[in-house]
């Protein structure tokens, strides 16, 4: 590539054109990205400094009042609390299972292809369909969840309508929907150099030992990346709790995303909604920064 550039430079006046041409081609994507993505962050920050009035924009300037008032409401901290409970549940319920599935799939000699395909299907089911199915499963009267509980001698529960169960019920369907992560893990496991595996086998490293000492250390980095991605995705959780319960009952499933949505769509408080957006962005950016730092330290 450099040779090409040098060749261009020798041509004198032609070289300027050659230098400019790539940037002319890059201009539309760069400008579109700036407009549709980066500009919106600035806009959110700008809006958060005003008592924003969408009809007579921007309304009175209030400085950081929106932030101060937001931090002093209990509802805001409840939303953070809910978000972190969701995060905790996601990590213990849905994060580890794809790793187990991939490890075991890798051990299968027959039927691996069929089972892998089976694992993918639930991951591709549209979220609204999943919501319809699981809302019916959790239904206190007509659902199968209470039937199973009764069968084992338990007491029927209100599930989604019970503030202490609702988060569990929203995260649980994800246990079955981790098929795409399974694919990632499986391809990473199968990408481990066969030299390592075979030489370890001669040393008696088979079965469970192989998983413990060969496979897991070799896919450790993918697990870490997936962990960080799961954290980032869960921090901005919005669709799923909204579809299942619209943030209820009594705000028990109101995540930060739903908090932002409710602030501007129900309370029409655009300024505070923007302030919450900026804080959320900041928190997620910090987490992404940690990820990139780890990524770099591995490459070095």
């Amino acid at each position: 590539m450099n040779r090409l550039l040098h060749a261009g430079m020798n041509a004198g006046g032609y070289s300027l054109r050659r230098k400019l041409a790539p940037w002319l081609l890059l201009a539309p994507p760069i400008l579109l990205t700036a407009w549709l993505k980066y500009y919106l962050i600035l806009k959110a920050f700008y809006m958060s400094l005003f008592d924003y009035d969408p009809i007579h924009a921007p309304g009175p300037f209030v400085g950081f009042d929106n932030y101060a008032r937001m931090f002093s409401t209990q509802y805001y901290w409840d939303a953070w609390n809910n978000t972190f409970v969701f995060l905790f549940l996601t990590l213990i319920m849905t994060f580890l299972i794809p790793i187990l599935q991939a490890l075991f799939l890798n051990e299968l000699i027959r039927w691996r292809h069929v089972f892998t395909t089976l694992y993918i299907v639930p991951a591709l089911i549209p979220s609204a369909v999943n919501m319809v199915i699981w809302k019916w499963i959790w239904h206190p009267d007509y659902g199968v969840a209470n039937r199973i509980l009764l069968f084992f001698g338990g007491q029927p529960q209100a599930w989604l309508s019970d503030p202490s169960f609702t988060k569990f019920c929203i995260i649980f369907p994800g246990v079955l929907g981790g098929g795409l992560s399974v694919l990632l893990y499986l391809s990473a496991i199968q990408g481990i150099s066969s030299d390592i595996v075979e030489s370890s086998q001669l040393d008696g490293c088979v079965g469970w030992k192989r998983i413990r000492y060969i496979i897991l250390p070799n896919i450790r980095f993918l697990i870490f990346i997936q962990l960080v991605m799961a954290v980032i995705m869960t921090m901005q959780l919005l669709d799923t709790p909204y579809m299942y319960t619209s943030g209820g009952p009594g705000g028990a499933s109101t995540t930060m995303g739903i908090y932002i949505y409710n602030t501007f769509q129900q309370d029409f408080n655009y300024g505070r909604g923007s302030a919450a957006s900026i804080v959320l962005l900041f928190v997620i950016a910090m987490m992404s920064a940690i990820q990139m730092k780890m990524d770099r330290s591995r490459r070095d």
Partner: protein
Amino acid sequence: MFRKSGRLKLSASDRTLKITAYIFTALFALLLMYPFFYTVSNSAKDNVKIYDVPPKVMPEAARSLSIVLDYSGLGTVGEEQLLDKMKRDNILAMFSTLSEYPRDSLFEIKTYGVRDGKTVFYSRAHKMKLELQRDFGVYQGSAVKKEVLLYGDRYVKANEAIGYEFDPAGLNRNPDLPKSGSKYDSRLLSMFADTYKTEGAYVGSDVTTKNALLLESYRYYFQLPSYVYANNHIIARYSFMAFWFNTLLVIGWAILTQAVLCSLTAFVISRLIGRKAGNAVLLYFLGAMMIPFASIMLPQLVMYKEMGFYNNYAALLLPFLYPFGFFVYLFKGFFDRIPGDYFEAARMDGASNLYLYAKICMPLSKPILSLIVLQTFIGNWNDFFWAWMVTEKQNLWTLNVALYNLSSNGSTKQNFIMGLSVIMIIPVILLTAFSSKQLKQSFAASGVKG
């Protein structure tokens, strides 16, 4: 590689691991499939059985009921008058049995009007069709009573919707009544003589089991949107297809923009500018990808509304008009590996940049394109919130938005919603079955990142 070694040498530890692996995988696969069976089984129940406590695992067999009414005793009446009477009776017979026998799984009702030994009138309706008419159609919001059913010209409209055959010279359809009579005889006889008094005299009825009727239900589930949103002429005409169209339009547009923008951007980064500048630009695009939707949805909504991009296709499509950083990264990695000689040779012949891009890079990048098609599809297939926020008109809804709205609409029955879910799942299963190999390859390729 593990396969071979596994066969060569199976130690005790290996054996327990393999057994555990098979048991775990099989159990999980069963668990995964359960929601499907649950949905299919529930969607095949009718709107009464689905609310049974305790819920049954399997739906009941579907039955077909034929009712025969005789008009010989009417004396001389004009053709028009006769038809009118039969139409009234038809509606009475169908809707009354529907409401009087809610638990009998009567999925099909046929009425025969006979006169002097000839069948002159025949009409046939599926239970779900009648349900739709009762809940959202002609009889929306009214109770099933004789006066209500026959009020004004409602019964005429209902007959048009259900369909009937009438020929005073005799139709080629003959009811086949059992000699011994049917278990419905006494009750229907009194019903048609009293509460739902018909003009024709009740002759008899026949009940047969016809499980194919359970499948026919899906046809009417599919029509649900056109009844619920009858005011929207696009939905009224195309029903669920309109939502499919919107979803495919959005995904198709996303695939198109991503394929073009990402490959072009990656081509410039990889081939036309220096390494340092290229990495900076790539970082710029990767950074844009990382911006969480939840934290820009508010300014995005405000900005789009200011530009008039609200409640129209522009609002649905514009968010995809920027290159997705991860795909740029994948394309760049791919273009970096194309040997430089290709380009040099083409340049010697005076080829322009665009020529290099269109004739050298793109034809070589078919595998990466298929990866992007699949991943864009998966990524946007589940998209809900933005589409839900910016669309008020029903004809703009995507599948997810439509199903969410239909399911939160209090008057839709659960079996209809379950049926629509099945209709939405089937293409996914087919897609997975046909493209599972490409999917696996695509994920193996994108896993390079990790």
